[in-house]
């Protein structure tokens, strides 16, 4: 017979039940031979393979069914052997029976494991686009971003364009949100980017429809064009004819030249549109970010010579202030780092925390199983005595664990699906939320994690099984286990659990301390009852007309019920630094030229924001427009810096707008940029007096009651749409949310960790309870004898609780050491709290210790109240 035929035969042989194997194989061989003689070798071979392949599913199902149902035909009675997989299948049956007979254990083990699996899976789903997925750019490791002590200007970019060395091409991008009016719908805001013509070449990305930008598109006289994302294309109807059509963006028409493929994003997934602008080689306007693709053969990790060259080119041409000096410390940053770096710590911290929970859950289930194995020691001993091999006993354990694992994976997958949205919304990952999708791969991950976890879990009882003297157990079992010291492994598991829980709890405690410190900072503005509406006006109106419109909207908002004061500002506190302009004090012109923050606000601004007036007055109706200057309000930091020991009221300053401006009032400092910044000088101009407003403005409305702040937003929206239909509403929020955002990811990570530490503590408590009650039960007889001999029952109680407490204390100690090693993960979220903050560590330890004692108390109390006479009689 041919070797290939032998293989087919072997497959059939392996699949057939042993009792009928020989006869069926003989029949097949006979049939094969007769076909061979009638139709030739080829036909016979094809027939055999066809039989093997087509029979396989039926035979597998047959084997399984026979073993599961226990059906054995009468004709096979007295015939030796069973089918393949027999032991595994009967073990599965046995394990199912056992699990069903112990529902508490089964449910507890599955749920515990499911919590860990579900959590890890959900975090994996969120983290996947950030940590695991490749960037949608060709050879992304060749793409780097330029160093940035401050944004790059158009002038710098255009000047450098033909002076790069070591780069294939360099492009630039800056934020460029635009308003879109499409059909009859309201004006909407598109998250977009203004880019230079090279950008898509740098990224190595091609549009799926139409073309990308060409060299002339950003030159003076270039046609206004746009490339849209796949998502926007779908929203606009998804027709290929979109290429060549015109969209009204920011009030002016632009031709769509291309559609990027699905899955492409830059610089974040929320970006819907990319536009070019006509670059102005003399513009010092900033906020550009430079990205380059290194030339072939250049090592992207060794760009320093090229950076040095660029810095010397810059030095020849530009003068820099110390703060924004681009000729120092230049370096290239890998694009992955630029795009994802900021979010990674939060995701990694959560990932680690989730992994720890999974480990705790594993330890918990391992302890539960160990308890089961020890509880069954007499049974195991009997079976061993009857000839069961250790291998077989272990196999049973593994099968049981796998069943628990599969159950846990199903529940865990469901938990992950439920928890996924929550996680995605509470992690500080910004626009990445759009990329975080939940799909079937998550269930595969859940199952893989579950199987990994149960194999880890089953290791523990398996070790105890292999180490233990099974036959010896039988004799001691009859004695009631007085020798019962043992349980080392279980105790070790408790210590490990507590140590892991300690890591999470102390991490959460560190963040709680840090966040509470952040909230304790006084931002200088009213945060509880202020509604905030960001609007974007199209740039095709004149400055004055825009200002007029904003004032109109402002007046209309003031009419809404429940509103105490309204105002508009170019820049809201707590939201980044905003514009600065130079300042000179009249009468002190010799002072070094410096800049201060520069805010344009409407009249009621200070009232609406709750900014306290320290001296003088704020803007009023008498402050009219004039060509020779006007009035200005300054903050305390400015007064302190430029007028030390003097009264600034009545003094005049120049800079920014033309003319000389009289200081009429001093107001309290507010958090101009970030929450944690020191007070910095700022000056305020009245929008009415300068008759100017930028294209983006923030409307604020102070409400009478804090709870109205969020409620008001809808009517504010409607008012804006009615009074100024050309304004796009960018964001509607409240000042307290702005504060939350300013506090930043620390708060979101804290909430997650707080949640996870509750989970860790619950699991830890279950573990301690389980192990201590098992410990107490095993020594029941021991205690009973001692109590019978006169030991006070209170001593039993303290002894058992002490046992639990010492395990917990040991776990805490190990945990503290681990915390010291792991707390570095959290440094980027901590504000004025060291990673070894004693208060945080002490609180976490205390909480865990109390929890451990409480968990140990229940079984201890139970053990101390047992009647010794009953126990002794029982055994």
């Amino acid at each position, binding site marked *: 017979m041919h070797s290939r035929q032998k293989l087919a035969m072997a497959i059939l042989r392996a699949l057939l039940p042993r009792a009928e194997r020989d006869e069926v194989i003989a029949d097949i061989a006979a049939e094969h031979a007769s076909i061979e003689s009638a139709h030739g070798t080829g036909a016979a071979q094809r027939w055999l393979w066809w039989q093997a392949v*087509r029979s396989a599913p039926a035979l597998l199902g047959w084997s399984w069914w026979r073993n599961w149902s226990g059906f054995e035909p*009468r*004709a096979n009675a007295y015939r030796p052997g069973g089918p393949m997989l027999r032991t595994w299948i009967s073990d599965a049956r046995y394990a199912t029976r056992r699990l069903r007979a112990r529902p508490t254990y089964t449910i507890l083990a599955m749920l515990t494991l499911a919590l860990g699996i579900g959590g890890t899976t959900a975090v994996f789903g969120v983290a996947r686009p950030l940590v695991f997925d490749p960037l949608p750019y060709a050879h992304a490791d060749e793409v780097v971003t330029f160093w940035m002590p401050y944004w790059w200007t158009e002038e710098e970019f255009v000047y450098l364009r033909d002076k790069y060395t070591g780069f294939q091409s360099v492009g630039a991008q800056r934020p460029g949100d635009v308003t879109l009016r499409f059909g009859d719908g309201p004006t909407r805001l598109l998250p977009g980017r203004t880019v230079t013509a090279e950008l898509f070449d740098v990224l190595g990305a091609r549009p799926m429809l139409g073309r990308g930008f060409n060299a002339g598109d950003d030159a003076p006289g270039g046609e206004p064009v746009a490339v849209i994302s796949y998502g926007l294309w779908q929203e606009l109807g998804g027709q290929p004819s979109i290429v060549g059509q015109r969209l009204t963006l920011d009030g002016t028409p632009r031709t769509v030249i291309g559609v990027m493929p699905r899955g492409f994003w830059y610089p974040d997934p929320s970006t819907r549109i990319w536009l070019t602008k006509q670059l102005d080689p003399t513009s010092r306007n900033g906020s550009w970010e430079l990205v380059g693709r290194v030339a072939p053969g250049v090592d992207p990790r060794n760009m320093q010579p090229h950076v040095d060259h660029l810095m010397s080119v810059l030095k020849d041409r530009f003068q820099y202030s110390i703060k924004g000096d681009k000729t120092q410390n230049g370096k290239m940053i890998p694009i992955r780092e630029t795009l994802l770096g900021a979010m990674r710590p939060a995701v990694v911290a959560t990932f680690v925390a989730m992994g720890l929970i999974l480990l705790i859950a594993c330890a918990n289930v391992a302890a539960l199983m160990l308890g089961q194995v020890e509880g069954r020691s007499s049974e195991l001993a009997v079976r061993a005595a009857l000839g069961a091999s250790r291998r077989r006993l272990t196999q049973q354990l593994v099968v049981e664990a796998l069943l628990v694992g599969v159950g846990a994976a199903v529940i865990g997958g469901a938990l992950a699906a439920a928890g996924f949205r929550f996680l995605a919304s509470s992690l500080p990952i910004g626009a990445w939320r759009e990329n975080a999708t939940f799909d079937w791969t998550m269930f595969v991950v859940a199952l893989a994690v579950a199987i990994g976890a149960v194999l880890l879990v089953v290791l523990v009882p398996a070790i105890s099984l292999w180490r233990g003297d099974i036959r010896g157990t039988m004799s001691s079992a009859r004695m009631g286990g007085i020798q019962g010291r043992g349980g080392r492994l279980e105790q070790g598991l408790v210590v490990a659990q507590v140590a892991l829980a300690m890591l999470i709890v102390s991490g959460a405690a560190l963040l709680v301390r840090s966040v509470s410190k952040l909230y304790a900072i006084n931002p200088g503005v009213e945060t509880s009852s202020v509604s905030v509406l960001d609007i974007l006006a199209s740039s095709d109106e004149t400055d004055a007309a825009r200002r007029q419109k904003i004032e109109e909207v402002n007046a209309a908002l003031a009419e809404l019920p429940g509103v105490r004061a309204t105002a508009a500002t170019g820049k809201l506190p707590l939201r980044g630094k905003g514009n600065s302009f130079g300042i000179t004090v009249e009468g002190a012109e010799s002072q070094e030229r410096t800049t201060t923050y520069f805010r344009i606000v409407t009249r009621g601004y200070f009232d609406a924001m709750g900014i306290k007036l320290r001296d003088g007055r704020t803007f009023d109706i008498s402050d009219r427009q004039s060509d020779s200057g006007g009035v200005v309000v300054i903050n305390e930091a400015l007064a302190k810096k430029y007028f030390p020991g003097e009264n600034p009221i009545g003094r005049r300053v120049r800079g920014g707008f033309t003319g000389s401006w009289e200081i009429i009032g001093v107001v309290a400092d507010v958090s101009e940029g970030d929450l944690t910044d020191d007070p910095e000088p700022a000056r305020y101009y009245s929008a009415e007096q300068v008759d100017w407003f930028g294209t983006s403005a923030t409307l604020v409305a102070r409400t009478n009651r804090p709870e109205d702040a969020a409620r008001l937003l809808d009517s504010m929206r409607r008012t804006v749409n009615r009074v100024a239909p050309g304004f796009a509403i960018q964001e509607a929020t409240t000042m307290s949310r702005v504060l939350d955002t300013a506090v930043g990811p620390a708060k979101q990570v804290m909430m997650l960790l707080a949640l996870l530490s509750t989970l860790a503590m619950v699991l830890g408590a279950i573990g301690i309870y389980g192990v201590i009650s098992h410990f107490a039960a095993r020594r029941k007889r021991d205690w009973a004898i001692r109590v019978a001999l006169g030991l006070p029952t209170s001593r039993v109680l303290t002894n058992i609780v002490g046992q639990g407490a010492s395990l917990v204390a040991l776990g805490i100690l190990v945990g503290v050491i681990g915390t010291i090693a792991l707390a570095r993960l959290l440094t980027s979220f901590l504000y004025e709290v060291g990673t070894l903050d004693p208060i945080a560590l002490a609180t976490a330890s205390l909480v865990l210790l109390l929890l451990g004692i409480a968990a140990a108390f229940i079984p201890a109390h139970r053990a101390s109240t047992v009647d010794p006479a009953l126990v002794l009689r029982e055994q």
Partner: protein
Amino acid sequence: MSDFTPLGVLEEQVLVAVLRTRGEAYGMEVRREIERVTGRDLAIGAVYATLDRLEQKGLLGSKRTFSDGPSRRLFDVRPKGARALAETRAMRERLWQGVSVNGLLALARG
């Protein structure tokens, strides 16, 4: 019609083949018989699985031959199996009543 559940197509074919092979009904012979009559290839695994299922339902019985040649598991139709076959056939005939074969052929020719 009390506890009668209609037989599946393969079940029916296997039962009939066991009847037709008369005393020689072992797996491979049953397979061969069905192939001979229906003209379609059949996997031996499917035949064995069906034979087992029918035995478990009590429609077939099996015993071993210990005569000359290899020992084989031989099947015979039990009363319950005979009843099931009769019912299935009766049901089919009722179903076909009033449908003329000639008309059908005319339809098939289009």
